[in-house]
């Protein structure tokens, strides 16, 4: 056996660039492995910042998605240079400005994953775990689920994903899809102020979603990327400026409808998704959580988890 690879943050810049230019960097997100190749100067720098805790793997036998991030063609190499994302030689969207190569890559991988991973129910949700018991935070975009996910990781929860609740239909387990957390606009400074341990990548000004910066997943979350968690609690978070903390229990059928509505592929999966989401809604208590202060919200979630009997607990890697 070869020794486990060291983390990307301990890999030299030139080594990383070389891997990107040659066989590629193999990034294990848990639910999927991406082989990333790039001939884009400077891209390695932004990757190092937000993927510091991920192992440096310049070779692997298998990848689920083969993607590239490359410089613009022809005149776009020099004049207002841009970056292109491609998967299997196809460019599914328009190029981004060069400075936004990282958001382009992150967004591109999310898109490809949502398109191609229909073996799982993909909930639009943040997912975190404490002792392998998962909290699923389902919400529409803009409700602050990424910010709350980021804050929970910084308070010691294991981050599974800030975007995808990957529900394995056969086992009912939740799989990590551990990507850097995309923080938008005011959330960037909020999280920086929230914890001295927050490792944030460069701020990309004025992308399609406003300013974006990525929070690097921590070492503990990365180390557990292949460990599923058992769903234990469903939260529908709602940030309201100045609001007092409020928890409203959700009836099972209500939780079911809200989870199904906040899913990328519920319609596509039909009966498969119906069963999986119904089982989830039946197994987990669900609450709507209105909050204005992150720490209060996190304490409330921790208390709800502690109240739950630790049922099956750890699923373990299968």
């Amino acid at each position, binding site marked *: 056996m070869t020794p486990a690879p060291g983390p990307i943050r301990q890999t030299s810049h030139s080594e990383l660039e070389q891997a990107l230019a040659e066989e590629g960097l193999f990034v294990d997100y848990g639910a999927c*492995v991406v082989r990333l190749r790039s001939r884009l100067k400077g891209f390695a720098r932004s990757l190092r910042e937000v993927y510091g805790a991920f192992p440096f793997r310049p070779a692997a*036998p*298998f*990848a*689920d998605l*083969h993607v590239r991030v490359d410089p613009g063609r022809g005149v776009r190499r020099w004049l207002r240079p841009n970056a292109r994302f491609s998967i*299997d*030689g*196809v460019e599914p969207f328009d190029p981004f400005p060069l400075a936004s190569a990282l958001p382009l890559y992150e967004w591109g991988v999310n898109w490809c994953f949502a398109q*191609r*991973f*229909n*073996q799982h129910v993909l909930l639009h949700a943040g997912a975190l775990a404490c002792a392998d018991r998962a909290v699923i935070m389902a919400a529409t975009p803009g409700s602050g689920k990424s910010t709350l996910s980021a804050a929970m990781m910084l308070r010691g929860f294991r981050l599974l994903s800030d975007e995808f609740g990957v529900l394995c239909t056969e086992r009912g387990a939740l799989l990590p899809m551990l990507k850097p957390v995309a923080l938008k606009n005011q959330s960037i400074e909020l999280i920086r102020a929230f914890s001295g341990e927050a490792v944030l990548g460069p701020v990309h000004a004025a992308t399609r979603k406003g300013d974006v910066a990525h929070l690097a997943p921590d070492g503990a979350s990365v180390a557990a990327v292949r460990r599923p968690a058992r769903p234990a609690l469903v939260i529908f978070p709602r940030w309201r400026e100045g609001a007092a903390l409020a928890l409203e229990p959700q009836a099972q059928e209500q939780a079911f409808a809200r989870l199904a509505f906040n899913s990328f592929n519920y*319609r*596509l*999966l*039909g009966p*498969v998704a119906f069963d999986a989401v119904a089982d989830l809604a039946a197994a987990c208590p669900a609450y709507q959580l209105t909050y204005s202060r992150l720490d209060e919200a996190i304490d409330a979630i921790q208390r709800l988890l502690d109240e739950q009997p630790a049922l099956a607990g750890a699923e373990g890697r299968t």
Partner: protein
Amino acid sequence: MNAALDRLLRVLRDRAAARALSLADWDPVLRLGRQARLLGLLGHRLASDEALWSALPPEVRGHFRSAINYSAFRSQAVRMELRALDPPVLPAEARVVLLKGAAYLAQGLEFARGRMPNDVDLLVARADLDAAEAALRAAGWGAEDVDAYDERYYREWSHELPPMRKPGHALELDLHHTIAPVTSRTRADDALLFAGIAPLAGTRFWVLHPCDQIVHAAIHLFQDTELDGRLRDLVDIDGLIRHHLRGEADWGELRERARRHRASRMLWYALHYCASWLGTPVPAAGWPEAPPEPARRAMDWIFPRTCLPRLPDAAPGLGHRLAGQVAQLRYHRLRMPAGLLMRHLAHKAWAAVPTRRSSAGVDA
């Protein structure tokens, strides 16, 4: 032929070959299979052998499971579309024939399980075409964005109307009145075609004679589609042959029908590539007359380079690009006579000059 492509074909020939593949082998095989739009079909074949299925690496099963789920969704969309076309939408007296994917689905053909249909192809007799089109329009189907030239191209020289869509419906509808472009040298014998159709029990639809289904798939393979990624068409033909043709008499009928539809040459090539790549069993008496040797050699150079999927990691070599160009020319040459082809290409070349045309438009 490279190793990954060889493995893909081997698994298509015999699913048991999947056992020998390592995770590293699967990586390019899955990519090629996805490009050829064959993952759902292959997934079904592998998943229906439980021992084989559970021996596959979990990552590989995941990709196949995803494709199976996706194809189930598309197949459901086809069924909904067919339900929407029941009378009174289409006139009850018109005999509406399902073609290709929709036909395989409605017939419940095992080989086509997991196939990913992208549209619904219907065939009506030329005499019923106007009524069928009018009925569809009245029910909300309409063609999108077709300019006057393309409209005329479809109506006078093609074998189908411009694709139609209805808002809120997932799939496109192609209404055909025969199975080969009317300008091509392959002229399907419509009388024979319609004399051979059979009603589909429990529905208002009909299907082609089994041999005509094979002939149609062969015509489609060489004349009708995008030039790339046609391995799936061969897999269809392979599946149809194995399902429908039982003995000498069936093969004789296939040869005879191909001859009367003037598609013997295409059938020969289809059988040739099916047999060599997919191991399709073709008895000696099943072969139509072989094409002359130089034509065969040319085809053997062009066809593998354009039909088979390829990994995009390396830019296509000169041979591949050249074969693509030649295939384009051949495709058009087969579809229409030279004079018409010149007119068509001249129009398309002119249409491809956007700045001159749009500035002329502004001046006017």
